[in-house]
């Protein structure tokens, strides 16, 4: 999932009636909703455009959310939930996540204090090998790059979303922009992939049999069906 900011020029028109302040939780919650699911950091300008708010308002809300997540704002004990474990004054405690501004973009991360716990959780069950599904997907991307997930799915006959995420995480493939027609994200292999393969460029990959179908015949169910 990649974070693509709505084009400020069109976002205003499309959402002309949108007033996030009227939604439950208001503009704060709207910003949270976006921050929780975007993969790439979003700038205050992008957020403002997407939410139909001024940049100033967004920056103020971001700062407030950041403080709130850090457990700074509230000290009032919370009597409603006093019966539940760990609750006394929990509203004033830091949350397990934090809002960070890195190179101008905002994103939610897990809180650094929990790095050990989270790291252990993440590492469990990880293997040093790629699964067969991941290898095949990587092979398709290597020979058909740049290519969208939808096309790789169509070639492999199965959904490849989670495998593509694994390959990204492993640094073997990367985002190479979007398809001008469908808007789908395109993927290509990385220099780390070349390094692991021991070759200098993808041109050095062994030739495939010329009879293999290219991408022309591949059903583009995703792109075509996308609303």
């Amino acid at each position, binding site marked *: *999932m990649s974070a693509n900011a709505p084009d400020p020029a069109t976002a205003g028109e499309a959402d002309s009636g949108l007033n996030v302040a009227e939604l439950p939780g208001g503009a704060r919650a709207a910003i949270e909703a976006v921050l*929780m*699911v*975007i*993969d790439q950091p979003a700038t205050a300008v992008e957020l403002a455009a997407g939410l139909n708010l001024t940049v100033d308002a967004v920056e103020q809300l971001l700062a407030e959310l950041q403080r709130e997540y850090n457990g700074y704002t509230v000290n009032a004990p919370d009597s409603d939930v006093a019966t539940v474990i760990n609750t006394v004054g929990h509203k004033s405690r830091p949350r397990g996540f934090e809002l960070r501004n890195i190179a101008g973009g905002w*994103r939610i*991360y*897990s809180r650094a204090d929990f*790095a050990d716990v*989270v*790291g252990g959780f*993440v*590492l469990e069950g*990880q*293997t*040093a*090998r*790629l699964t067969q599904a991941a*290898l*095949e*997907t990587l*092979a*398709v991307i*290597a*020979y*058909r790059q740049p290519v969208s997930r939808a096309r790789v799915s169509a*070639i*492999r*006959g199965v959904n490849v979303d989670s495998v593509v*995420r694994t390959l*990204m*995480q*492993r*640094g*073997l493939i990367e985002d190479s922009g979007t398809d001008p027609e469908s808007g789908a994200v395109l993927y290509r292999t990385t220099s780390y992939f070349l390094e*692991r*393969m*021991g*070759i200098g460029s993808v041109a*050095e*990959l*062994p*030739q*495939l*049999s010329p009879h*293999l*179908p290219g991408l022309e015949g591949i059903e583009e169910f995703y792109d075509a069906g996308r609303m």
Partner: protein
Amino acid sequence: MALAGTPLAPAGPHADPAELPAADPLAGSGKKPGFEVRLVNFTGPFDLLLGLISKHQLDITEVALATVTDEFIKYIRNLQQLGEEWALDEASEFLVIAATLLDLKAARLLPAGEVEDDEDVALLEARDLLFARLLQYKAFKQVAGLINSTLELEARSFPRQVALEEHFAALLPELVWRHTPGQFAALAEAALKPKEAAPSEVGLAHLHGSAVSVKEQAEILGLMLQAGRPLSFRALIADAESTLVVVARFLALLEMFRDKAVAFDQLLPLGDLTVHWTAGRDDWSSENLTEEYEEQP
């Protein structure tokens, strides 16, 4: 969840197939509707049938299928006239249902009588089966509507599935990579090769159906007819457990007729065919049959 209480209304944008231009030959003039048009309009013969039934506001359980039969047939005919290309299996489904509907309609034109012979029973079975299939399809169509609305509702919340933070990604064990470029290419070759279609499930079992021997059937017919009474063909095949047996008995009769073991009597064109035994008791044996039916694979 709108579908729950809506009787028979086809879900979503594919509302009433009967209202579609294709049902009216004039509407189709000028441009020929393509394959998609048909698929968009309705998703199969049951869909069409349900649409027609709902158009007449009939209760599916009591529906007089005769009233929708004409429209069903007309619809198919129009599609054909418009030059629709039919996939053979799809067309056959439509035709099977059209034929069943026609049968049922024909039965209604006759004076209502007692259920007497096998044909009446078969007709009743055909009707019940059609109803059952229609009801079943209707049920699935309803839950398809529910699934659709649930999917649409759920598509409004997005899961958090973000890339792993870099410091965690750095903790991942170093990738074990043992593929040479050649092996990797082989992998790509295999992945890119067009997939063999999954094994076809088109029923082939009937091709290996138990072999039916014309000779055996002739023996059975001989025993039935040698009892003395003439029998109708219908009676002679009354106990046939498959069409194959019916065919074998028919062939056997032709053989026996040629051997002058039997004679036929038919009072009216298309009337009952009566078979008499004409040979002497021991003048005929199934051994007389030609060999040509025996070399069955």
